[in-house]
């Protein structure tokens, strides 16, 4: 099986073709540097994303949040749903955990701004 993707390593945006066999990337073509090869291997097997958004606090204000590290790309919408359901109370500070272990990813959702 082959997959087409656009490299995000730099503005070149090389069009990569990755051959995937049994869940393993065997070849990458179209890249013009090593970054493209690395990107394709990770993106085809285990794509990850940092999800950011807002959460509505118990007092009605919104606070910005993020997953502390990246989470599987397939879980992006689940994580966004979890953002929608949370109702944390003030005060919140940058780094405070708003949702622990979001969607079973093992990653916490933390506040990215301060709300006294």
């Amino acid at each position: 099986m082959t997959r087409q993707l656009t490299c995000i390593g730099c503005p070149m945006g090389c069009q990569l073709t990755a051959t995937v066999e049994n869940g393993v990337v065997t070849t990458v073509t179209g890249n013009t540097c090593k970054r493209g090869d690395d990107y394709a291997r990770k993106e085809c097997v285990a794509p990850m994303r940092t999800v950011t958004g807002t959460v509505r606090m118990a007092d009605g204000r919104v606070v910005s949040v993020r997953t502390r590290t990246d989470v599987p790309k397939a879980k992006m919408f689940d994580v966004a749903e979890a953002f929608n359901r949370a109702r944390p109370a003030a005060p919140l500070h940058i780094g405070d955990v708003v949702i622990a272990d979001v969607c079973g990813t093992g990653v916490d959702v933390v506040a990215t701004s301060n709300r006294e």
Partner: protein
Amino acid sequence: MKKVQLAIVGGGPAGLAAAIAAREAGLQDILIIERGEALGGILGQCIHAGFGLHTFGQELTGPEYAQRFIDRVEDMKIPYLLGTMVLDINENKVLTVTGRETGLIQIQAEAIVLAMGCRERPRGALNIPGTRPAGIYSAGTAQRLVNLEGYLPGKNVVILGSGDIGLIMARRMTLEGAKVHAVAEVMPYSGGLKRNIVQCLDDFNIPLLLSTTVVDIQGRGHIESVTLAQVDERRKPIPGTEKVIPCDTLLLSVGLLPENELSLSAGVALDGVTGGPVVGDDLATSVPGVFACGNVLHVHDLVDFVSEEAGRAGRSAAEYVLHRRSAGRTVALRGKNGVRYTVPQHIDADAMADTVTVRFRVGQPYRGAALCAWAGDRLIRRIPKRILTPGEMESFPIRKADIPADCDTITFTVEEAAQ
């Protein structure tokens, strides 16, 4: 009249970094004047990740990046005013300031750092025909409504402009449950980062329509649909390619304009291309003691570069107050053959630092090209570039030692790949 050694107009990333650098350079009497209700400027609403890779080696969100600078300002006890706007700066560096707390006052500054940022180009600037209904927002306004106020402008969205703000908002609206039907871009290429195209559009199967623009807007009270059409090489709509897309929201991400009304009131000369002040290597404007940095100087794509540039402006302002540098030989910088402008626009070949970073944008995408700096017909430096795009600001270091003694102008050019 209240007096201050250094007044910094704007408490966004540029103003904060300038204040910190000025204090580090030994200046005590600094005042940051911010019109918003919090320090940090536009970063407060830029809640996505991707800031600070150059400065901190990690990917922060906008508020996190800003907070690091705000914490420094607080630690250094640099005074600031919030909800306070500078209405006027006169040629003698008297600022007229208004705010709920201050009332209307005047402040005499010895030096000023201009850090007012930029504004979004409105619909009118594009002269998009059609009705003028509710539901049309510039991308930044929508970003504020969604991220800070917690309101959703609409649920069926079309975005015009594929700059980074437009792309970021496409993802943001999608994750908030809206359907983004298309991102239209009048140019044949996107001005946004490749990473944003992949992670904000491709991840969500949002089509990016290149060489396409909005040619009509329908809906009386509220927007009901837009008409998109393809454009030719001269960006004129091609008849017969029109397509009507029903929507309740049109977001415009069609360019940023440095906000220099105060600079003009102070008598600062502006550059016709950047829309920002003409500055030297110390980021001094044409008015002695007035410095500029950040998006008011020229629109950046990375906040890291803003912080670095603003640090330079802050240090220069402190130097101006504490021990003025003596002026030496001025060398003009200019862009040609694809280099649209340079910032700074001139350097002092004697007083400059050993290396000065010259920043500029190119006029179109190039592959396999090189950037060149020329003193007359002598090539001072050549930097090969696999890719150049208008969306990415270029940084070109010029070494003091490389500037010939008889040189009065350095010209930056794109050397295109041989066909």
